[in-house]
């Protein structure tokens, strides 16, 4: 059991929770994730760790309500408990000095970008961050990102805030005018794919953090398998961070859609049961 100490509504669909989980906080490093299960009937879902606090022994998660599980989670309040909170899982990113690191966060992927940007900053890297969302009401943690970046750019697809367009546009500009040693991209698969295609042209090493469907998160089931450099890797134990130039993003996108139908069924049944207004449903 892990108690929700703090809940913050970042945008109507994106929520932050600070979880009392000393066993995860003590070991957590940037890049790692947790698997959680809300209740006895619940599924196990992976969420990348957005922040962790050794003193308070807490872990921060940020999630977008896209299906039943994230909506049920979003309905929990401070003081409520999550039945299983497992981690930290996966490998951490390599925290070292590269020079100039560009961190690109898209949508809810801004959250896991934050601890990586902070870690790179702490290692003395010059950090440029680019964050983007479909619309201003999906954007969050601008200030947090600014604090750990030397320079921050903000985009929205619809132009309701910051620069209109995609994060890749800004990234291309940065690559054209500046020497970049490493790009780190976290967000929707399509955004990580476009980022990786772009940086490949410039031959800039690029790390992406994948978020495929998982069950156990400990290498036992192989549900999260992904092709990296022509080889089959398990995201949960070999990743979640991989070389973006080696990842088969199209396969990953197909695999993320395996349960689209069932996810919709579960969501509809739950919305009916709780008589909630349906939120716009989408899966990246």
């Amino acid at each position, binding site marked *: 059991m892990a108690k929700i100490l703090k809940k913050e509504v970042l945008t109507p669909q994106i929520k932050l929770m600070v979880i009392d989980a000393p*066993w995860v906080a003590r070991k957590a490093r940037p890049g790692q994730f947790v698997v959680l299960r809300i209740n006895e*009937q619940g599924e196990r879902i992976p969420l990348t760790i957005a922040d962790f606090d050794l003193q308070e022994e807490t872990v921060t998660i940020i999630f977008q309500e896209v299906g039943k599980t994230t909506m049920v989670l979003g309905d929990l309040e401070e003081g409520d408990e999550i039945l299983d909170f*497992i981690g930290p899982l996966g490998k951490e990113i390599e925290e070292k000095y590269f020079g100039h690191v560009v961190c690109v966060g898209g949508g809810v992927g801004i959250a896991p970008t934050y601890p990586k940007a902070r870690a790179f900053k702490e290692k003395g890297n010059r950090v440029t961050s680019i964050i983007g969302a479909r619309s201003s009401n999906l954007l969050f943690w601008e200030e947090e990102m600014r604090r750990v970046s030397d320079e921050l750019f903000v985009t929205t697809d619809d132009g309701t805030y910051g620069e209109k367009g995609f994060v890749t546009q800004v990234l291309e500009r940065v690559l054209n005018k500046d020497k970049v040693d490493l790009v780190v991209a976290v967000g929707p698969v399509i955004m990580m794919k476009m980022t990786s295609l772009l940086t490949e042209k410039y031959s800039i090493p690029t790390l992406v953090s994948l978020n495929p469907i998982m*069950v156990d998160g*400990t*290498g036992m089931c192989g549900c999260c398998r992904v092709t990296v450099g022509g080889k089959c890797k398990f995201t949960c134990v070999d990743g979640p961070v991989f070389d973006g130039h080696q990842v088969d993003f199209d396969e990953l996108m197909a695999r993320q*859609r395996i349960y689209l139908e*069932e996810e919709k069924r579960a969501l509809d049944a739950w919305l009916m049961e709780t008589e909630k207004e349906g939120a716009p449903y989408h899966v990246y």
Partner: protein
Amino acid sequence: MSTERPSRPKMPQRPPEERIKDFNEVPLGLSEEVAVAEARRCIQCKKPTCIEGCPVEIDIPGFIKLLSQGELDGAIAKIKEKNSLPAICGRVCPQEDQCESKCILGRRGQPVAIGYLERFLADYEREKGVKAPSLPPPRDKKVAVIGSGPAGLTCAGDLARMGYKVTIFEALHAPGGVLVYGIPEFRLPKAIVAQEVDYVQSLGVELKVSRVIGKTFTLDDLKDEGYQAFFIGTGAGLPYFLEVPGENLNGIYSANEFLTRSNLMKAYLFPRYDTPLKVGQSVAVIGGGNVAMDSARTALRLGAKEVCLVYRRTKKEMPARIEEVERAEEEGVNCIILTNPVRFLGNENGWVTGIECIQMELGEPDESGRRRPVPVPGSEFVIPIDTVVVAIGQGPNPLLLETIPGLQLNRRGYIAADAETGATSLAGVFAGGDIVTGAATVISAMGAGKRSAQAIDRFFTDSNSFPEWRQ
């Protein structure tokens, strides 16, 4: 000598057409009358060979004699001297390869149905309610058991009965290991596993679920918390894939994923339970072991119209229990033998649509003693399917192992451990079950857990034991 001996009873089971509609248990168990009659068939050999066939050396003639005299409580107590999980073993042990294969009666006729009798007695006791035995005075030593499968549960239970303070750490959210995520409800009801786990807890064993040793805590963290000995029983938890083209297409699962979704996550109760499991009309299961049978029979129960098993050798070489192959076939599973997948075919949306296979023939025996299957050139053909379960075995999960510096592994990547004690290369660290032997049986894992419990006791009480660790 009597000439009219009764014959071995058949296990009553639910008819196939009824049982494939649900996940309830298939065999129904013997009645007391039939069990006692079967016990009387045992000739009580002076030198019983059946015991040799039992990895935990149950006093088989002993318990059967008590049963034949109608002393059910005494009989189950006799089993429990050696085996703390009889309701499980009575269901999933391959008795035909173990105790029953050594039964003298089997030479001329049918061996005594030892497994059925064990199951009968365990169920008798379970229905009555199991009482925890009285425990010796507690000892001031803490032992950490990693993994709550058959090896870990047995080791923890035995140590607790000696008075040690034991904590089991389980990575998943439910205890039982393969007994809960792997073996389906229709073969091993989860209520039985839960009762066995409760029993171990009633002995004072502390159980911590959702704690991944190697990630959440390292072995050194546990040492800092005062644990002085360790038993690693994490199982062989890394699914093998065929490594042929198209294997990451949608609709292709490892048996681990398929069974974990269904068993542990209860996907068969979706959407009441949140975890889905997509099963199409036509399912192919690759493999010929018990896990393959479990997957095929699960697929039928989840609504598949057609289920086939694709196996590269013949039925004779299948590692699955004959009983399980028979039950699968009764339920309509079609065995396609001497066939090996070459690649998976898919549609434009990334879903599997077929398996290109090649026919095999049996060549010379390989190192396992089974004749090696070799492909017949030019014999490729396609099996159209929409779902595949790959059940070709598993290897050692490196997640924990790579976080224990100095732990010696064998050439297959499993933990190198003494066969008798489970002692590893690290002082105070023992290991047993599939993480040492590779995928084997529930009972052999239990046997290993049991031997390690005794070895851990010696480690604590005999300062001359394990000299290699004490320099």
